């Protein structure tokens, strides 16, 4: 059974339907792109997975979203655990009003995660990931000599994982708001990863970014998909072609077609998908 399974999901804003009867399984350890014209419900679908839709007044939901078999809208659902499991990147990055360093440790500290304190546990965890140019053994040795060794290592690891370490390693104490917007988005990625989610939801994560920063984010996603399932909302068709393994095409609140990226892009079945891909509707 995949991590995420959506069954007959309907979402309303007041009486206005935003999502109509969506049923789909999201494959694990792949990049799934949700594409479609603006206003078609892509973001609503994404936000109903981690219940960020709760923030709006007058949102109604029926149908089921099963995450690891549990109905997230059910009476026993724990929304805090849910959101911890599903990391989220917003369209415009929002640096928390604190230092770069604290942006990373904020989540683990609030969740009282043990890796923040235990260097060896953190080391075991990091070994499961592949990080470029990172000499873990040496970092562990160094960490053992410092008082805040575990939390320093945690910060370094996640900043490396998000591809930001080299640019900020000399100014970790600086306010995060001073970073460029592209760097802020990678910081947001690092901050999200630091609470150890299993799934990453990203809502047009590159739309506010310059092309170079956008490429960096895309590259990080490619690298991360071994360990995470990634769902990305995008209105940039070329981006979806570049990085998606699996594609959901939505139109006016309906899930029109879904399948492996190859199929959707090269042999779409529905005329609406064809029209969108050829640029007739946008």
């Amino acid at each position: 059974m995949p991590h995420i399974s959506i069954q007959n999901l309907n979402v309303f804003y007041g009486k206005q339907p935003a999502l109509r009867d969506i049923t789909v399984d999201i494959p694990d350890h792949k990049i799934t792109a949700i594409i479609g014209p603006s206003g078609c419900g892509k973001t609503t679908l994404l936000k109903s997975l981690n219940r960020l839709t709760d923030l709006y007044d007058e949102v109604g939901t029926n149908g089921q979203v099963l995450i690891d078999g549990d109905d997230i809208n059910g009476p026993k659902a724990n929304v805090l655990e849910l959101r911890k499991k599903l990391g989220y990147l917003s369209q415009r990055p929002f640096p928390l009003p604190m230092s770069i360093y604290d942006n990373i440790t904020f989540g683990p500290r609030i969740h009282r995660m043990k890796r923040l304190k235990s260097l060896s546990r953190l080391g075991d965890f990091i070994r499961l990931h592949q990080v470029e140019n990172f000499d873990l053994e040496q970092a562990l040795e160094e960490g053992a000599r410092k008082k805040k060794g575990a939390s320093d290592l945690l910060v370094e690891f996640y900043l490396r994982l998000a591809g930001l370490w080299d640019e900020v390693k000399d100014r970790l104490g600086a306010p995060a708001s001073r970073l460029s917007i592209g760097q802020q988005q990678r910081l947001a990625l690092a901050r999200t990863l630091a609470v150890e989610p299993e799934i990453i939801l990203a809502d047009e994560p590159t739309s506010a970014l310059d092309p170079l920063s956008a490429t960096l984010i895309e590259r990080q996603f490619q690298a991360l998909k071994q360990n995470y399932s990634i769902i990305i909302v995008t209105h940039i068709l070329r981006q979806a072609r570049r990085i998606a393994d699996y594609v959901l095409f939505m139109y006016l609140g309906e899930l029109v077609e879904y399948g492996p990226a190859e199929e959707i892009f090269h042999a779409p079945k529905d005329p609406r998908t064809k029209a969108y891909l050829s640029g007739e509707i946008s």
Partner: protein
Amino acid sequence: MKRRMAKDTLTGWSMKAAVLFANLLVFLVALGLLYKARPILASKSLGHLLTSSSWHPLKGEFGFYPFIVGTVEATLLSMVLAVPMCLLAAIYLAEYAPRRLRESAHIVIDLMAGIPSVIYGLFGIIVVVPIVREIGLALGKQNTGYTLLSGGVILAIMVAPVIISVTMEVLRSVPAEARETALALGITRWAAIKHVVLRHSMHGVLSAIVLGFARAFGETIAVMMVIGNVARIPRSVFDPAYPLPALIANNYGEMMSVPLYDSALMLAALILLLVVGGFHLVAHVILYRIEKRW
């Protein structure tokens, strides 16, 4: 073409002049007060006037200390009473309350801010003073109810709408991404508010408190009606006090035959102006520092 350019220059200049005039007014008022206060400053040192507790105008003794203490204590008391409650109310309205409740509460709060202060004074005499007297008596303090505490309570009620409404606006202006980002990490609503929303809007929240403070510090009539107006340093909140604005309002134009009295009141007004002005300045510096940090 030339005429239109001239018109443009002229409007530019006139606006500049208007701004200059408005800013100059503060200095003109301060200068005027200083000029009128000169006689008393010439007779006694400023240090003596500010620290002496002896207020006997007929003997030529003008010690402002009790009035300064009265003003500061009444204001601080009102802040202690008002700030925690106002912040909680504003956070609730901005972050938790459903839209309808928020909107209707907003109307009531704006209405409260617009009530003339003399009405608050009457409310104080009719409601607050008797209650304070009973509380005082229950605690074994002889009092008339016209006390520092009554003044503080009335001031707290009067500054509440200002603090609540400004804080609420400030919190509402925090971008939605701030809440989304914080909540998406799986933290509770309160943690998101405390660590992210409030921290992000610290500047604005402090501004709201400063506004409330300035209002309380300068408020005259309502306080005067309930605080007792006795020129002595209050030893407890159940003693009467006599704030500076009340001193000026009560006496100006009354005992002008007493030598130096007029000048002494002018000095009182100047002190009031300088303290409020100084407080604003300090607050701005602090806020600027905080702003620069994050």
